[in-house]
């Protein structure tokens, strides 16, 4: 649905977005994650045609943004970082204006009422925008993006400035929208992305440092899965028992906990679950598992590692898919 290819943006000598590529399928919710100033907004501005790229292409539904801007723009609903609101208009007047501006061909009043219900701003429809709170303004901006039911929604930090209750509402809204629309939404808050998105693209210093499904990001970054075991039994027996399990790549004893109990980290191939085999192998070797847990990197670990690595000049090449 949305294909970004080798997109680059340079301002003079500074490269803000550096040769990034990714695709988003129809009905997918893509989280665009990165620290502040990583180039998220710039990328989104290029996808929506607000600014042009220095090189590279953005294709939406088969049309290129620079070849056929009208068509591409009409199938994108965009909520920029600062919602583009006319402070002197009432909410309804503003949405009517945006409806006309976007040349939407739906019954006007019904459609605007429906969108206002969806983002819960019906009660402020006659208020002037400058008198609204930040949360309401953000939702008016959201409503504006939804006008005309565009197949692609691009949301730049849509939950900034909302209270926790509203954040949950907006997240659920994004999730439900993701069933019908293709959604790209950016945030620097990790928990938000992991709670909402099917896929995560991590960007740092203008480069993509990871692109993976939400549940696989930790694995994708480190390249393998890990299991942490606390086992009672002699080291030799435990190692021999674990070594023969199919799929196991590496075993490390990290610490001696007490007496015969040691902590082992077992690295194994992705895509399989070796926990049952581990349990049986250890048991049949006469040892006891006191604790077993996944030692995969959490999203936080991955995120911090990816963005930190990039700043020291390394790239997590293995993480790219």
């Amino acid at each position, binding site marked *: 649905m949305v294909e970004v290819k080798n997109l680059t943006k340079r*301002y003079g000598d500074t490269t803000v977005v550096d040769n990034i590529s990714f695709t988003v399928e129809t009905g997918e919710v893509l989280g665009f994650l990165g620290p502040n100033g990583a180039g998220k907004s710039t990328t989104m*501005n290029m996808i*929506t*045609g*607000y*600014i*042009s790229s220095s090189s590279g292409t953005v294709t939406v539904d088969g049309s290129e943004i620079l070849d056929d*801007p*009208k*068509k591409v*723009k*009409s199938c*994108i609903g*965009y909520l*920029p970082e*600062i919602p*583009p*609101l*006319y*402070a*002197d*208009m009432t909410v309804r*007047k503003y949405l009517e*204006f*945006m409806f*006309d*501006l*976007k*040349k939407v061909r739906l019954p006007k009043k019904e459609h605007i009422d429906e969108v206002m219900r969806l983002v819960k701003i019906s009660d402020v429809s006659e208020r002037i925008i400058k008198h609204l709170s930040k949360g309401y303004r953000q939702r008016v901006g959201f409503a*504006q993006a939804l006008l005309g039911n565009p197949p692609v929604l691009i949301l730049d930090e849509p939950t900034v400035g909302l209270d926790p209750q509203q954040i949950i509402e907006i997240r659920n809204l994004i999730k439900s929208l993701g069933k019908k629309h293709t959604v790209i939404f950016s945030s620097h808050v990790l928990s938000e992305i992991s709670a909402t998105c099917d896929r995560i693209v991590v960007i740092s210093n203008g480069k993509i440092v990871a692109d993976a499904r939400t549940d696989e990001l930790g694995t994708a970054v480190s390249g393998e899965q890990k299991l942490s075991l606390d086992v009672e039994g002699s080291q030799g027996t435990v190692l021999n028992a674990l070594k023969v399990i199919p799929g196991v790549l590496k075993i490390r004893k990290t610490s001696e906990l007490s007496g015969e109990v040691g902590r082992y980290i077992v690295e194994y191939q992705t895509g399989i679950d070796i926990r049952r085999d581990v349990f049986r192998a250890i048991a049949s070797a006469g040892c006891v598992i006191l604790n077993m847990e996944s030692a995969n990197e959490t999203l936080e670990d991955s995120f911090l590692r990816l963005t930190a690595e990039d700043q020291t000049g390394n790239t997590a090449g293995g993480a790219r898919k």
Partner: protein
Amino acid sequence: MKAILKRELSSYFNSAVAYIVMAMFFGFSGWFFVGTCFVGNTSSLSPTFNNMFVIIVFLIPIIAMKTFSEEKRQRTDQALLTSPASLFEIVMGKFLGAFILYAICCLIFFVYGLVIMFFTTPDWAVILCTTVGLLLMGGALIAIDIFVSALTESQVIAAIVGMAVGLITYMMGTIVSMIEVEWISSALSAVSFTNYYSNFTYGILDPTGIVFFISVIALFIFFTIRVFERKRWS
């Protein structure tokens, strides 16, 4: 374009801008009208029209200053530029919005014509032609000021630069007479707004004037579109 035009007009008329501009325009023109026609006992509106030039130089920047600078400051240009509307539609919508407000101001001269009818027959040709000239010249100034507004985020800067440009066009005749180099003065007088405008005040629908002002309008609308294209590509 219709959506933008509608919003422009509603933003003028839902704020004080439209009313203050109209009040100033009507107030000053009324004062000049009474001062020349009644006190001077003449049916000629020409002195009124000539005096209005100065007022227009100050009023038009006030009408046009917010067109794009305010959009940029509020970041609403993002909504405009990412909408399916083309740059031409956007700039044209803004231009027509400002122009219609200005045109409503100019209609007052027909009222003065009607007032004169109570006493004598007014020279309708002069009134009509001068109003057309005033509209064209105002349109050209609006196009220039919209261009200036597209360059800055500050309404104040847009207004001041707009007024400076207006004053220079107003004083072009004096400037030309001060320059002794032949080709510069003739080049400057060729772009002097007052030269073209004065033909209209005699009751002549001057084709060169019409072409000149419409060219200026087209040129600056084109420049404004270029500002946004250049910004996008920088």
